[in-house]
């Protein structure tokens, strides 16, 4: 008897219609997400913009409490930490002397050469509001957005190292795609040897370093900085150090403290062209094709090198946008 009523209830035509409409609506959303991704991401940014800042009253105390618990746990190791800090402080004093001398020398040399520091590299500071909330994506949400002058594609750092770039912008919030995300590709240069490589995230805490020309020249501990080759990341931002994993692959130990991202700096970069249409790429505009017929042909190896380099390095970031992951 009850069972009959149950079936009857489920088979009610009105309910069926609603289910079908709902499913069609969701399918439409998925297709919109896949076909016109920038628009879907703008809708997402608007939704996140609506929801997350309004939940801050609930999230801020919990975050604070959890961080306090974290800090409290470290009291257990207070003595060892104290010893370690003393040792480090001793070393730092020596470094500080060296740094002061170098700073004075640098100031003298800059003065001699009449160098003006680049005024375009200023930043906007933001507080991390939220995580990605998914085990497969590495991104954080900042409390600054379009109204604070943030634009899509700008790089984000913590005090020390590169963290990621803006991918998704709302009025009051901005999403930072971390360099550890599997969609993140950053052109880098490895310091003493000056080799170009690609830092590609794989959802682990130490991203892979790919496309190294001569791996023999690279040792663990080498510094990794951004090369600026894609026109997205400014050149010379510290990324981290080389480590070699058990499978003999090069990875980056990141300089930024990804365990506790709290305040981030969004580096202003006037060269980044924002992505507005679904068929454009992030990055500097490509030169216009001269002859349309040539466009249809497969790109020949004799294409100018910088152009192909830009295209190939842009496409992963554009893919990241296009996939919305």
């Amino acid at each position, binding site marked *: 008897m*009850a*069972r009959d009523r*149950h*079936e009857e*209830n*489920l088979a009610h035509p009105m*309910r069926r219609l*609603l*289910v079908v409409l*709902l*499913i069609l609506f*969701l*399918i*439409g*959303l*998925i297709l*919109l*997400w*896949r076909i016109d991704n920038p628009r879907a991401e703008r*809708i*997402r940014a608007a*939704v*996140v913009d609506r*929801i*997350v800042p309004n*939940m801050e009253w*609930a*999230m801020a105390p*919990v*975050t604070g409490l*959890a*961080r306090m618990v*974290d800090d409290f746990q470290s009291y257990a190791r207070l003595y060892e930490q104290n010893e370690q800090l003393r040792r480090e402080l001793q070393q730092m004093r020596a470094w500080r002397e060296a740094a002061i001398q170098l700073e004075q020398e640098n100031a003298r040399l800059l003065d001699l050469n009449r160098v003006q520091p680049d005024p375009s590299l200023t930043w906007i500071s933001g507080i*991390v*509001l*939220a*995580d*990605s*909330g*998914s*085990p*497969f*994506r590495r991104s*954080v*949400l900042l409390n600054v957005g379009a109204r604070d002058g943030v634009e899509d594609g700008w790089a984000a750092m913590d005090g020390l190292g590169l963290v990621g770039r803006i991918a*998704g912008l709302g009025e009051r919030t901005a*999403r930072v795609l971390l360099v550890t995300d*599997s*969609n993140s590709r950053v052109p880098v240069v490895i310091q003493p040897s000056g080799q170009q490589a690609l830092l590609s995230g794989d*959802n682990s*805490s130490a991203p892979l370093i790919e496309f190294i020309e001569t791996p023999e020249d690279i040792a663990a501990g080498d510094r990794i900085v951004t090369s600026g080759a894609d026109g997205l990341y400014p050149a010379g931002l510290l990324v981290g150090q080389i480590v070699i994993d058990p499978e003999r692959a090069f990875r980056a130990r990141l300089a930024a403290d*990804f*365990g*506790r*991202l*709290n305040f981030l700096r969004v580096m202003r970069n006037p060269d980044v062209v924002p992505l507005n249409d679904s068929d454009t790429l992030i990055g500097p505009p490509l030169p216009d094709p001269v002859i349309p017929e040539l466009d249809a042909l497969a790109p020949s190896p004799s294409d100018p090198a910088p152009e192909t380099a830009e295209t190939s390095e842009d496409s992963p970031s554009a*893919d990241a946008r296009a*996939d*919305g*992951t």
Partner: protein
Amino acid sequence: MTDPLTARIWLFRSYYLTLCLFVLIWQILPLGRDDGAIPVPHLIMALTFAWLLRQPNIVPLGAVAAVFLIYDFLTHAPVGLGALIVVLASERLRRVQPEVANMTFLGEFGMVAGTIALCTLAERIILGVLLAEQAPFLQVALHAIVTIACYPVIVLVSKYLLGLDRLHAADPDNV
């Protein structure tokens, strides 16, 4: 309107929404926990299935769709995909709920495990058809396994902490 059964249903509906909001907030807190090898289970999915198989009325279709759509939006997942799959799965479970209500817990657990596995598989297939980028298979599989493993815990918690018991087909309030 104010008979005890309706009041109870609405009470549990509000519990459901509050719990989902809670889990969602907890998941997106910026604590940097998810660097470990074991991913955080999909608690909202397990909760939805557990409650749906206990009392379908307290997990209405609209609530499921809204919760998972917001979840998709906030977790930077493909928009609407998770919601679509869970809505389809929940409709299926709603249909078989009277049979499941007479099974042992093991039978129910097997049913839910199969559903979660199918959801994961469906998501991968749809993303594959759409040629979209996917997370590595191992991570996704591990996520599904962890979610399945946390299902009995959620059932225990909702039974003994919230007093949400299984509805038998013979019960008069099985509407």
